[in-house]
Structures are given as structure tokens and as C-alpha cells.
């Protein structure tokens, strides 16, 4: 969405110039917001209106503004963003502008530049020569980089709610509680993911150990095998749980197939050791040491696996990024073109991912803990669905729904 602020002065009420300008904005498919209006008190007093005009493309906006100028509209000349140099590496100048995850524009030398990518809780660095603006984290900033300070020359465009009648996210941006029905929503989500597949969307899964522990791994494997997963974000523990399950049938010593069986952490450590010995998950698959499970399916189906570590990790297994800053960088990079994210029973990891998402990314958060769902959904208030439920029935139903639809691809069209 591109916008420009115009100003109208004169006897714009008596001459009906104001309604004419507003009507023209709408008939050209653009929108307006009256930012300020002052109506003359006496007969000869002139009136004033400041109007923000927004249009889909910059060409449409230019053409419209040109038309409106005929009727006396003047383009307001907003101030450029103020820039200050980073005093040392890793430190922003004081009063630096803190970004949201919304689309943001910076006015530089009279022109607006879009901040790319949109990233929340960052500063904005402007490159004068390239005329580009990017969101930067502390570790990204070097001494002398020019950083936006204050609020002048910044424009934030909130994501518009989808108006497509087929979009699941059009109506739902809230949380479905534990005692509410979920089947219809899961079915719709399945269809949304199918549509996404067709349009080359990128689907990411953030997976928590509960997937393995509840025995939902097999359902996730079905999604991976049907090519509904492009990237998998998880911690070291998730991978080791999955390997333990694949190698020994247990996860953290518990066999999900037995009602009350108990075991120790032994299998968990043995699983980590096996992968370390093999030289990593992909190597273990190649050497036929790891023959099933989620990680195996990811390797077989070329799903991009992004594993990051925590302090409590055993191992870690090769391929896990343990440097927290490096992990942030890798995650951001891998999230850049993602369009749909399923945050599945992984509170900390989900919050980390959600904070890195562009506002246009459609997000589904599933967790048994209502507060975890609430916190994750907060990041994407217009594009998210939260489901308070055990992850196993969710994944089972989603996998079944997709399998049914894949088997009868014509059915949707007939409906």
C-alpha cells in the first residue's frame, strides 16, 4: 500500500471541493483518512483539510494525486527521517527508532524507501548510496552505520485483513479454547495449506518434543511425505526425541505405545550418541542407521531442517546451531520467504519464530497451554489462529484431512 498526504485549502466546503476530492479518491479505488480538518468559522474564512491517500500501487497513487492537484490538492511535504551514526559496533545511537513487524517506509531525501525485510524489535539502518533501508539487530550494526532516530519520516502500514471469501484467516484471528470444536477449522486449515501448495507458498513447522512424546510424529511424517512441509524449526531435544523413538521406540524412556511403561533417560543419551557417532542426522539416514521418524522423513524429502540449541541440551547432535546470535541469523534467513507457519507445542521456540515473522505470514499456533497460545498469537493479531489442544489429535486430523483431499482432488471443486 502506497500513500501520500495531501492538503486542501480554500472554500473547499462551500465549493464542494472536499467531497469531490474524497469521491474521486474512492472512485479510483484508493482510500483516504482525514488526518486533520479545520472549517472556517465565518463566511469568508477558508477551510483546511489534510488527507492521507493510499493506493495499491505507486503508479495508481501518482496518477490519482495528479488528478487531485487539478482540484487544488497540494502534496504535503513530510520531513525526512532523521539519521544518526552508530557510536560503536553493536550499539545504536540513543533515541533509535524501534520497529514493529509491520510494513514500514522511511522517507529519505524526499522519497519513501521500504524497510526490507520487516522485522520487529529492530533498528533501521539506511544506506545512502544504495538508497535502501533494512531492519538491523544489535549484532548487525557497525560503528558509523546510519540509523533512524526519532519518529519523523516513518510510515507504518498495518496489514489489511484479507477480504477474500475463501480465506480462513479472514474471519478467524482468535483463539479456539480447549472446550470448543476444532474439526471444521482443522479441515479449513487443510484446504488453506492445499491452496498454499498450489501457489508455491512456503510452509514452515516449528516442532516441540510433545509431538514425539504424544505419538503424533507419524502424522507429521505423513504431512512431510505429502510435501506439506518446506522447513522444520526445532531444538536439539526434539531431534533427539525423534531419533530415540525411531531407534528404541521410546521418547525420554517412555514408550507411547504402552499405557504405563516407564524407563530412564538412557535411551535418550544413546540416541544422541548414535547421531554424534554417525556424524549427523543426514549421515545416519544415509548409513541406514536412522530408518524412520520425522527427521528421517525430513532428510528423505529434502525438508530444510533448522536446529538450534538450548542450555539443557544433551549432545548436542551435529547440525545444531548453539550460538544464540548465529541461531537468530539462521532462523531469520530461513524464515524470509515463509508464508505459513504452524507453531506446534513448542512455546519458547514458537515465540522466537513469531517475533521474526513478517505480518503477512499466516500463523497457526497449537498448544495445550492457553497462555502459550495467547502469547504466540499476540504477534500476528490479524493473521493467526490459536488452538488450545493436545497436538496429537490436531496433527492426526490435519494429516487425515489432507490425505482425504489428496485422494479425491476433484471433490473440492464440486462443492
Amino acid at each position: 500500500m502506497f500513500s501520500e498526504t495531501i492538503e486542501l485549502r480554500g472554500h473547499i466546503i462551500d465549493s464542494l471541493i472536499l467531497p469531490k476530492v474524497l469521491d474521486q479518491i474512492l472512485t479510483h479505488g484508493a482510500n483516504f483518512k482525514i488526518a486533520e480538518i479545520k472549517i472556517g468559522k465565518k463566511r469568508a474564512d477558508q477551510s483546511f483539510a489534510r488527507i492521507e491517500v493510499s493506493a495499491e500501487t505507486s503508479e495508481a497513487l501518482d496518477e490519482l494525486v495528479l488528478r487531485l492537484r487539478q482540484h487544488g490538492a497540494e502534496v504535503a511535504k513530510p520531513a525526512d527521517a532523521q539519521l544518526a551514526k552508530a557510536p560503536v559496533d553493536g550499539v545504536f545511537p540513543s533515541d533509535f527508532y524501534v520497529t514493529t513487524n509491520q510494513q514500514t517506509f522511511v522517507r529519505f531525501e524526499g522519497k519513501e524507501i521500504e524497510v526490507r525485510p520487516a522485522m520487529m524489535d529492530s533498528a533501521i539502518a539506511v544506506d545512502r548510496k544504495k538508497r535502501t533501508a533494512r531492519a538491523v539487530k544489535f549484532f548487525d550494526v557497525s560503528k558509523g552505520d546510519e540509523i533512524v532516530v526519532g519518529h519523523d519520516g516513518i510510515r507504518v502500514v498495518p496489514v489489511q485483513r484479507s477480504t477474500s471469501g475463501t480465506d480462513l484467516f479472514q474471519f478467524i484471528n482468535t483463539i479456539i479454547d480447549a472446550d470448543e470444536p476444532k474439526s471444521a477449522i482443522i479441515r479449513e486449515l487443510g484446504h488453506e495449506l492445499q491452496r498454499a501448495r498450489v501457489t508455491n507458498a512456503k510452509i514452515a513447522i516449528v516442532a516441540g518434543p510433545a509431538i514425539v512424546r504424544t505419538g503424533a510424529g507419524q502424522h507429521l511424517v505423513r504431512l512431510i511425505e505429502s510435501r506439506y512441509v518446506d522447513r522444520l524449526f526445532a531444538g536439539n531435544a526434539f531431534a533427539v526425541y525423534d531419533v530415540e523413538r525411531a531407534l528404541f521406540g521410546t521418547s525420554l524412556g517412555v514408550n507411547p505405545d504402552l499405557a504405563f511403561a516407564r524407563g530412564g533417560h538412557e535411551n535418550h543419551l544413546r540416541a544422541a550418541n548414535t547421531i554424534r557417532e554417525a556424524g549427523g542426522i543426514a549421515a545416519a539416514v544415509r548409513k541406514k542407521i536412522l530408518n524412520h521418524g520425522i527427521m528421517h522423513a525430513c532428510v528423505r524429502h529434502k525438508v530444510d531442517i533448522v536446529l538450534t540449541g538450548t542450555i539443557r541440551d544433551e549432545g548436542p547432535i551435529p547440525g545444531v546451531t548453539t550460538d544464540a546470535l548465529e541461531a537468530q541469523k539462521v532462523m531469520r534467513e530461513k524464515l524470509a520467504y515463509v508464508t505459513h507457519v504452524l507453531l506446534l507445542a513448542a512455546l519458547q521456540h514458537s515465540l522466537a519464530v513469531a517475533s521474526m515473522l513478517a505480518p503477512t505470514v499466516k500463523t497457526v499456533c497449537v498448544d495445550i497451554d492457553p497462555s502459550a497460545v495467547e502469547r504466540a498469537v499476540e504477534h500476528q493479531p490479524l493473521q493467526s489462529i490459536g488452538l488450545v489442544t493436545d497436538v496429537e489429535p490436531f496433527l492426526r486430523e490435519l494429516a487425515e484431512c489432507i490425505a482425504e483431499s489428496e485422494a479425491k482432488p476433484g471433490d473440492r471443486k464440486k462443492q
Partner: protein
Amino acid sequence: MRELLLCPPDYYGIEYEINPWMSRARGAEAALAQKQWKELHATLLKLDCKIHLVAPQPNLPDMVFTANAGLTVGRRFIPSNFRHKERAGEAPHFARWMKEHGYEISWLPDDLYFEGEGDALFNGDTLFCGYKFRSDIQSHRAVAEMLGCLVISVELVDPRFYHLDTCFCPLPDGGAVWFPAAFDEYGQRAIREHVPELIDVLPEEAMHFSCNAVVIERDIVLPEGAPKLVAALVDRGYRCHELPMSEFIKAGGACKCLTMFMPQRQEP
């Protein structure tokens, strides 16, 4: 007694084309133009007007259309900023003449086009201003600031009626003669809201420049060819003086275009 500024058509002719009426190929007949102008001059004299003449200048054929010299209110004269370079040369001659005759000259900023009384007509204490073809709406605001009066800006949409005085003629009783189709929808609504009694001119009569009339109290001097309008005006108690204007209509002007009030209004 109303004072008027006219300019003899000594150098008048169709030497360029800046509106749909003008055709250099067709041209205007000089002798007939002289005759028609003299008849207008005589009619206005007969109506007890005091007529001032500005000296015509070679290469400025349209100087005869003094309504576009500027706008006079009280002793203040706001000279035009002509949109077309062909007419821009007229401005200093008019300004000099007005200054020599004791008027205070108030120039508009150079970048605002404004074509004087042609696009600015008082109806009571409201100044109606036309825009788009010749004057910019921005100039209306500047004029409103200079004069401290209410200005109703109306958009002109038919290039044949490129000045306000070709399609709108205020009457002393607060009403006006107009050709509605020359205005956009908003302009029509604004005029209807501010002018209580409007006399619509039919398209075939508007083509004879019937709205381009000089109103001196109850006397209206207008081009011939508008019997229905004349009947409507007579019905309202006006005396109509119909004049042949064929040679000036060829340049897109008639009685009113050939006349500027000095002043159009005493005080804003």
C-alpha cells in the same frame, strides 16, 4: 454610472488557436468585427456607461477581450496571469493602464494562472470562479485572501465554455443565467446551493454565447440568437439588447468578453 474598459479591435483577428472556436483557416472579417464592436460600444454608451478605452497593441489580437485583463474590486486591480503565452503579452499593457488610472495593482504569484473577470464573477458578495481550462483553482484561494470574500470555485468541463463568463452570468436580483452542462456535477450543486434563481440556457442558445452578456442594472446586452433566453429575461423585467457578435464568437468571445467592469464590485 458603471465604468467599463474596452479595447478597439484594431489588431483583432484569429492569429492562433487556443480554444475550440478559433480557426485560423476561417478567420474573422475585420470590417464586420469593427462594426459589431462599435455597435456594442454605442449600446453601452446609450445605457449611460462611462467607457474607457485601452490602446490596442499590435500582435496582441485578443486584447480586445478586456474581461480577461484582470479583476477590479474597488480601487484594486488584480491582473491576469494568462495560461497561454499568446496572450501573456497583454498583461503588462493592462496593468500599466490601470496603474496610470489610479488603481492599486495586486499581482498574483507568477505560477498561478488566472484570467480575470473571464473566470471571476460576483453574485452578491460571493465571488464565483471557474477553473481548469484557463484559471487554476489555486489562484482562487489567493484572490479570496486578497479580497477577503467567499469564493465558490467551480470546475468547467466543456472546452467550448472555457471561461466562467461563457456559461454563467449573474443578475442583479441575485439570480443568474447559466448553461449547467458546462459545469461538473459538484459545480452545478454548488451553484444551485448559492444562487436562488437560475435561468437555464438551452444548449442551442448557449452555442450563441448567450451567457456572455453585459448586465447594466435592468439592461442586458447579449449576442443575438437566444430567443428563449430573451423571453425568460423579459419575463423577469429585464430589457434585452441583442447584438450581432459573429466575428468575435469565432474567437470564443462575445459581449461580456469584450468588457471589463471598473470595478466589478465596490467592496468585497
